[in-house]
């Protein structure tokens, strides 16, 4: 049984629809800029970020908005887009066969900062809003989207930092494949906050050397890369069993062929090329796809020294140097929990439009990132099968494969 993608929704640093984002990507735009609010943040070496494009939340009812931080707002808007494209409305769902799988790196960091500031100021919990917890709880995004939609099916909230939305969609695929579910709304979201930048900054994984020219960083696979830049956004796709989609006369945007997640348990933050290869191999195996069929690889490569080198080596060892590879982090920044599906959506559009996107800011391939076919320019080429990687702190490695609809 095939699992098909019937809808997609995006709030991103480069546009608030798949079409808008892809158009910006094609033009080689970047959203990275100085975040002046972070200038006063003692000890923060990276003061760069890629904020989401402005979005409008007045379409959401107040009773939904009151418990939302920006990550949930963006996720709700992206979900509405995805459902609209799929031609699905809430009354169409058989809740006993429907999933909503959506997560974020943590609960809202904006909410947490506010909560703990009040806790300190008031020397206790006096003055805490009745809605505060619903923003900071780990399943805030999933629950808020469910409430905003009126979704009464199964809600699962994976939280695996930068692999969150990749895990969401792989889990959705697995559960639909079992036959237990027909439809899965899969997504991930994160909001921009200095705490997110600080997490990477503290382990020397955030970009520090480009504050006078922010658009030149991050630089995935480049010789002069010096770390990632955090972003924000929400990405959502609708997965459906082939039978369910056919029964309701829906249209597929692509096929989710399969994916895998494996843990790299030897280190909390450092990448391991062998484990990265293993997860790509397993994704191929689970999808029933041969290596030779893969025509494009969407790399996770965020612009860090160690991660990019390990991934390039893993791709080289697994696929050789004949498959085009690019990372979109140079355009979009790193939207953490949203990036897996952000890149899936971009990859579907690349296949649909017959245009592979380059790695922005990749000017000189670093010696430790060689051995693969880097895309230094956008390339017009028709592709049908792509593999996408996403890796996260905590040793969470994921890889999945998507296919164009012919």
């Amino acid at each position, binding site marked *: 049984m095939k699992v098909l993608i019937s809808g997609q929704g995006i709030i991103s640093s480069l546009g608030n629809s798949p079409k808008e984002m892809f158009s910006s990507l094609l033009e080689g735009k970047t959203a990275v800029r100085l975040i002046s609010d972070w200038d006063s943040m003692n000890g923060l070496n990276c003061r760069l970020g890629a904020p989401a494009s402005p979005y409008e939340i007045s379409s959401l009812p*107040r*009773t939904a908005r*009151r*418990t939302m931080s920006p990550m949930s707002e963006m996720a709700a808007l992206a979900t509405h887009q995805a459902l609209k494209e799929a031609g699905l409305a809430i009354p169409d769902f058989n809740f006993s066969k429907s999933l909503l799988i959506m997560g974020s790196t943590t609960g809202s960091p904006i909410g947490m900062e506010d909560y703990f500031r009040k806790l300190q100021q008031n020397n206790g919990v006096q*003055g*805490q*809003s*009745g*809605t505060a917890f619903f923003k900071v709880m780990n399943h805030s995004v999933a629950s808020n989207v469910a409430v905003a939609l009126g979704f009464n099916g199964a809600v699962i909230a994976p939280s695996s930092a930068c692999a969150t939305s990749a895990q969401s969609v792989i889990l959705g695929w697995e559960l639909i494949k079992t036959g237990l579910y027909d439809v899965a709304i899969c997504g991930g979201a994160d909001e921009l906050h200095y705490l997110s930048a600080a997490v990477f900054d503290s382990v020397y994984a955030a970009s520090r050397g480009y504050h006078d020219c922010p658009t030149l960083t991050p630089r995935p696979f480049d010789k002069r890369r010096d770390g990632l830049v955090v972003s924000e956004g929400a990405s959502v796709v609708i997965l459906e069993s082939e039978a369910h989609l056919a029964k309701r006369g829906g249209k597929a945007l692509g096929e989710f062929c399969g994916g895998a997640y494996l843990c790299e348990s030897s280190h909390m933050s450092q990448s391991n090329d062998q484990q990265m290869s293993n997860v790509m191999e397993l994704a191929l195996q689970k999808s029933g796809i041969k290596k030779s069929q893969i025509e494009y690889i969407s790399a996770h490569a965020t612009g860090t020294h160690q991660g990019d080198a390990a991934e390039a080596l893993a791709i080289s060892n697994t696929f050789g140097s004949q498959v085009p590879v690019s990372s979109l982090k140079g355009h979009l920044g790193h939207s953490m929990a949203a990036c897996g599906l952000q890149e899936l959506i971009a990859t579907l559009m690349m296949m649909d439009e017959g245009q592979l996107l380059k790695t922005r800011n990749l000017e000189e391939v670093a010696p430790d990132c060689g051995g693969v076919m880097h895309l230094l320019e956008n390339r017009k080429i028709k592709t049908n099968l792509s593999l996408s990687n996403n890796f996260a702190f905590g040793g969470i490695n994921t890889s999945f494969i998507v296919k164009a609809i012919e």
Partner: protein
Amino acid sequence: MTDYNPQIVAIVNGILQQKFEVPLEKMKSEARLKEDLNLDSLDFVDMFILLEQKLGKTPQNVDFMKITTLGDIYQMVMDLNAEIQKN
């Protein structure tokens, strides 16, 4: 017909309009909080915090089951204000 303190009514209505997006024309003392104004217990908590910021004191030991109309809110705040004045 209960006479409500216009100052208290203005404070409560201001909070409801600004924080809870209740249209001014719906703010009638007989309006039911849940059915007419779309307010619930989560909103009460935040309303009390805002009232505390305005009045310097928060309502204590409130029996939410008995607060069903906007008039009940006005009365509760009037009682609270009287208590503040007394002390």
